[in-house]
């Protein structure tokens, strides 16, 4: 008997370590997803589903129903819902980036002694129920709510109406505006945290080097700080964009007839129409929709990890 080589033992050890998350993903993601996929191509038979494969008169009969997927492509409703989900998620991501970047920047440049306190403040909203915080916006944005009054007093509602975020001045609730506001408010910390962790690690001497070579603070920001925080921007954007696409609660509470999103469609298919195969088809399509940017992201992450000296 020879003892297994060190390399062999290492390989076995690595396999054991990787097995745990792999098993987790297999049991709690892959299997349920396969079930969902199966349902999406099944025929409803009263309250149950027909088998996909049946032995019939000595021949194997496949019974895969792709009608749901066809409907997804053909019916404008689904297509426009997907599009509007992507649109609102994108707008929210951009809004979070514009608010979150300066936020994270000043946090990262604040005196080291106050940084933990600032970090705490960013995470403070998580201490209250998410539902409660979103619901609070309803009160703030209805007619004569504080936020509504402030927006009215500043004349911002005319601007919002002009860019089409609200149908008419004075009407803030259940509009694209209230939806994007709610999602931006909710997901802002997910943008700030990765950006902060990225920006706080930046070598400030690089800014001095840029200044020495003739760059003003503004130019140095765009040519050095922003490119170097790319990984943080991508991470933050993914963390905001992906959950926003499938968001259900916020569109339900703050959205309106204009802001149909895929999460609500899902809900309707499951619980109002009771059409599980259709709902599952919508789900599969949504997962695919999200997996593509996620794959791009993780590939970028892998590359940048490799590149690190």
């Amino acid at each position, binding site marked *: 008997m020879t003892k297994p080589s060190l390399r062999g033992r290492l390989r076995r050890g690595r396999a054991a370590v990787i097995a745990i998350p792999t098993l987790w993903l297999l049991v709690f993601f892959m299997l349920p997803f396969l079930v969902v996929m199966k349902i999406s191509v099944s025929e409803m038979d009263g309250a149950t589903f027909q088998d996909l494969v049946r032995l019939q008169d000595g021949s194997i009969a496949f019974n895969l129903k792709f009608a749901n997927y066809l409907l997804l492509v053909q019916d404008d409703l689904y297509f426009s819902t997907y599009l509007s989900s992507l649109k609102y998620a994108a707008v929210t991501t951009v809004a979070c980036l514009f608010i979150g970047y300066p936020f994270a920047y000043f946090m990262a440049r604040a005196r080291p002694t106050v940084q933990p306190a600032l970090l705490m403040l960013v995470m403070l909203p998580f201490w209250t129920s998410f539902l409660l915080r979103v619901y609070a916006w309803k009160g703030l944005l209805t007619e004569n709510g504080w936020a509504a009054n402030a927006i009215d007093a500043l004349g911002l509602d005319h601007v919002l109406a002009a860019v089409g975020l609200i149908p008419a001045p004075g009407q803030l609730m259940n509009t694209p505006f209230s939806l994007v506001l709610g999602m931006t408010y909710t997901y802002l910390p997910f943008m700030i945290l990765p950006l902060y962790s990225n920006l706080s690690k930046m*070598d400030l*001497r*690089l800014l*001095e*080097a*840029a*200044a*020495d*070579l*003739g*760059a*003003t603070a503004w*130019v140095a920001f765009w*040519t*050095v700080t922003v*490119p*170097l925080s*790319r990984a943080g921007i991508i991470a933050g954007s993914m963390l905001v964009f992906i959950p926003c696409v499938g968001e259900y609660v916020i569109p339900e509470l703050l959205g309106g007839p204009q802001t149909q999103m895929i999460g609500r469609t899902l809900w309707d298919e499951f619980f109002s129409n009771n059409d599980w195969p259709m709902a599952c088809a919508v789900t599969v399509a949504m997962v695919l929709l999200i997996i593509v940017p996620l794959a791009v992201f993780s590939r970028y992450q892998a590359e940048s990890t490799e*590149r*690190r*000296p």
Partner: protein
Amino acid sequence: MDNGGLCALLDPMQPAPFLQIQDIVKDFDGHRAVDHVSIDIAKGEVFALLGSSGCGKTTLLRMLAGFETPTSGTITLDGHDLAGLPPYERPLNMMFQSYALFPHLTVWDNIAFGLRRARMPADEMRQRVEAMLKLVQLTAFAKRKPHQLSGGQQQRVALARSLAKKPQLLLLDEPLGALDKKLREETQIELAHIIEDVGVTCVMVTHDQEEAMTMASRIAVMSEGRLLQVGAPGEIYETPANRFVADFIGNVNLMDGRLVEDEPGHVVVECADCRHYIGHGITGTLGMPVTVALRPEKIRVGRAAPVTVEGVPDAAFNRARGTVSEMSYFGSFTVYHLALPSGAVLKVSQSNTERERGGQLTWGDEAWASWSTLSPVVLTS
């Protein structure tokens, strides 16, 4: 090295020096980092600020670059006051300690960074960057990112980047500090050659005396924010102005004593273990406490008492007897520690000029040390 700049400095008919640092003070929260420093630097000179960490040399360099504002005093470059000019408007460039290369840009783009900011036309920029790459022999590495380069290559990119804009003044912050010893020696010579080729006026900061000695035409030794001595490397080594400089630069034996004879051509200092007959005059009063600085390589050592010591009137001077208490062999030379009767230790270094020398000293041997009248220096502060 071209000494034209230095001569210009010494010629009273010449206009004001190229870089003039006048009475600069810098305070940080009540702590004085730079204390009334004035230096004149001529065009084409390579000037080194030498001192241990925290001596104010880096703060001084950062004030030249514009990253710090002097509390008082003025800096003029080529007749123009630099006060109020932000770093990005100063006609000088800096090579940063550990380089501060932009990690997201290629070697080419790192070098072009400053040229882009100056809005140089694309054609001219390409030519300049290529010339710089050639200068530092990195043409083949233009498309690499900094992390794909070795330490020595990164150092050359940093140099090329800081020279690309043809600055009037080049600042070097510990230019070789991030390299290991072997590479440092090679790079030192290479760096000196490039600076000489380009002919740029240069102020460097270093804590490494060898680096300062080999690269600079003049050195300023700093301690606790003050300038202790400014001079050519040889001057600083052979005629240190005070105890600190003597001790900081190279190895030295410092012996405290009393001035017992003070003539224009020589002085006699009496120390615990010996009397020094020293071939230069000083301004002092008889009986005053002084320090004699004696470099280890300027002492001869042997088993027998020296018959004569050149320039010395009689056998009472410039010799000491002791026991070898320590011996370190360095290959090209050996350092002996002689324990003198008073308990003081005299360091002596001897070149190993022959492979095998009979009767070499070893631990516990009695030995005589002797030195010429031109070897010691009397320090009054």
